[in-house]
């Protein structure tokens, strides 16, 4: 296949795209290394880094002991010391153990030192539910991270972003957290073979409608697009916004859409109370109140630790049917 520009296009999984991004970064910049639990010999908990150990060796594909606080802190130190570490925290569920280092050190060092030091660190974490991993392995804590000044938070939802955001994150002189939703790893998409970094400042309008704005990110993008297709069948045409960057939020893209559609539904896999969806609702109200024809609605995860059985897990998470129902309600149907 070829792109419009005549480049070659291949079908790759999200997992492959992340691996390609890692490979590219490791080849391009000798200061880059990957560190985390089982990134090397095991090939990564979600098989993302499979094969990299052979190409780059154990110094640059560095298996760590189970010490999230220790090795994330070591990543911060290594970044200070001139390296460009990519630290993998197996999943966001375990990141509680390194949150002190992220909040109190990585995010504050530049400020506390009066601008003397920066921390060019990228932390990758898997996030999200859907694999029946139950209450300790199914969190979506994106909003906790999006609350922290001094870091950038990214949520690639497409293979292109999975491929491109890592490099852009490495170029950023400040700490960047990248959330990879576990349900996306097996998803396939088309990717130009010469695909590289992508802009990370803007949200993307993944579908253009006119009747309402569906605003989402990460794993929920695909459910939301599915809901939008179903709504189209009912004559409701939705904008679908993929936030891409969760901190900072791209207010301009959100407000442009909402000002046009006058209605918004936010889809967010976090627990409802204190979710990122609340922040987006607040911003819409602050910036677009007079354009709104209906209250902003949220489709979030039920406020329960995620249960193990499939039917209960499904019931807890945002699903296309709930998105459709919320959209209809906002449309007054």
């Amino acid at each position, binding site marked *: 296949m070829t792109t419009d520009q005549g480049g070659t296009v291949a079908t790759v999984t999200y997992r492959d795209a992340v691996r390609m991004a890692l490979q590219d970064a490791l080849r391009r910049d000798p200061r880059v290394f990957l560190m985390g*639990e*089982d990134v*090397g*010999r*095991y*090939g990564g*908990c979600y*098989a993302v880094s499979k094969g990299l150990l052979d190409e780059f060796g154990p110094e640059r594909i560095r*298996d*760590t*002991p*189970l*010490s*999230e*606080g*220790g090795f994330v802190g070591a990543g911060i130190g290594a970044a200070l010391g001139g390296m460009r570490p990519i630290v993998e925290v197996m999943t966001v*569920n*375990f990141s509680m*153990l390194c949150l002190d280092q992220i909040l109190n050190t990585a995010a504050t060092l530049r400020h506390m030192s009066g601008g003397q030091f920066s921390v060019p660190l990228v932390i990758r974490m898997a996030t999200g539910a859907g*694999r*029946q*991993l*139950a*209450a*300790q*392995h199914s969190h979506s804590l994106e909003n906790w991270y999006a609350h922290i000044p001094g870091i950038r938070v990214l949520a690639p939802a497409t293979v292109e972003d999975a491929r491109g955001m890592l490099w852009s994150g490495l170029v950023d002189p400040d700490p960047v957290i990248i959330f990879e939703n576990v349900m996306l790893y097996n998803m396939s998409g088309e990717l130009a073979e010469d695909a590289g970094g992508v802009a990370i400042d803007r949200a993307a309008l993944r579908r253009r409608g006119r009747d309402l704005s569906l605003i989402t990110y990460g794993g929920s993008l695909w459910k939301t697009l599915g809901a939008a297709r179903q709504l189209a069948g009912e004559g409701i045409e939705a904008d679908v916004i993929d936030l891409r960057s969760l901190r900072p939020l791209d207010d301009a893209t959100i407000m442009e859409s909402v000002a046009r559609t006058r209605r918004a539904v936010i889809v967010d896999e976090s627990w409802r109370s204190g979710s990122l969806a609340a922040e987006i609702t607040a911003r819409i109200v602050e910036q677009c109140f007079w354009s709104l024809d209906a209250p902003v609605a949220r489709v979030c995860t*039920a*406020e*329960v*630790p995620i*249960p*193990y*059985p*499939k*039917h*209960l897990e499904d*019931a*807890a998470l945002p699903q296309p049917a709930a998105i459709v129902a919320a959209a209809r309600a906002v449309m007054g149907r």
Partner: protein
Amino acid sequence: MTGKIQAKAHLTRERVCELLRSLLRIRRFEEKCAELYTTEKIRGFLHLYIGEEAIAAGIIPVLEPQDAVVATYREHGHALARGIAMGPLMAEMFGKQEGCSRGRGGSMHVFDAATRFYGGNAIVGGGLPLAVGLALADRMQGRNNVTACFFGEGAVAEGEFHESMNLAALWRLPVLFVCENNLYAMGTALAISESETDIHRKAESYRMPAAVVDGMDVIAVEAAGRKAIELVRGGAGPAFLECRTYRFRAHSMFDAQLYRSKDEVEAWREKCPIEHLKTWALGAGLLHAEETAQIEGEVAREVAAAVAFAEAGTWEPVGDLARDVHSPGALA
């Protein structure tokens, strides 16, 4: 092997049969689980204990009913050894409401109040502080109980291990820390995760008594466990037991095992705790071939009944989704 010689004196034919049954119940239960995973009756992460059975089977029966057990996501063996019935355990693996955690937990979150079985923790190292607290509660309430806390050697690198070891030793709490050293944390070999690979030596730096035992030898484990539990119950404070073992299967059902050789796995399979016990007991005249067959038959029937129980189990209604987030009546 000294453990075995010492322990031999106490060993009756009956006890040998019990131990064999205990090992086999775990083994056959888990073999069935693996099978049921491929047919998607069991989902999520499934971590098998196969190869390591001698640890739970050796130590847990030495505990008293009022003692407490804290385990990890690799806890089916501990649950069975502790006396959780196989039916509810299997139903839990299925996610049915007849499961021992009412289906909410699954393989990684097995709980049972009746036997003081406190999980079932899927955060590596997360159970250790809990064990410290359970022991503290026992001590403050004047109960002479022991809390046995099981964890892998991978957990030793975590900060929560360190903090818990210090707290337990500092406060002289009745915890038995049992490190199931199976040489790997997922794909990370011990030498890649610890600068000191003699794990039990770490206990010294907390001034905690420690021992190491062949974790493939249920009789040795039992002897070492008994000694340690007596020590702990005697009020000497916590103790540490490193059991050297090996998991025969993959870490979980998603694991290509690129990090170790087939030869290494084969070499360890030679040390199978079940074969080991059988061979020795048959040789020592403490077991007859017919008994083995009989136990195998009984265990097979128990497993089949457990599967039938789980199959017959029911799904919790979706309307109950918000149940058990809070205690009844605690929150609107």
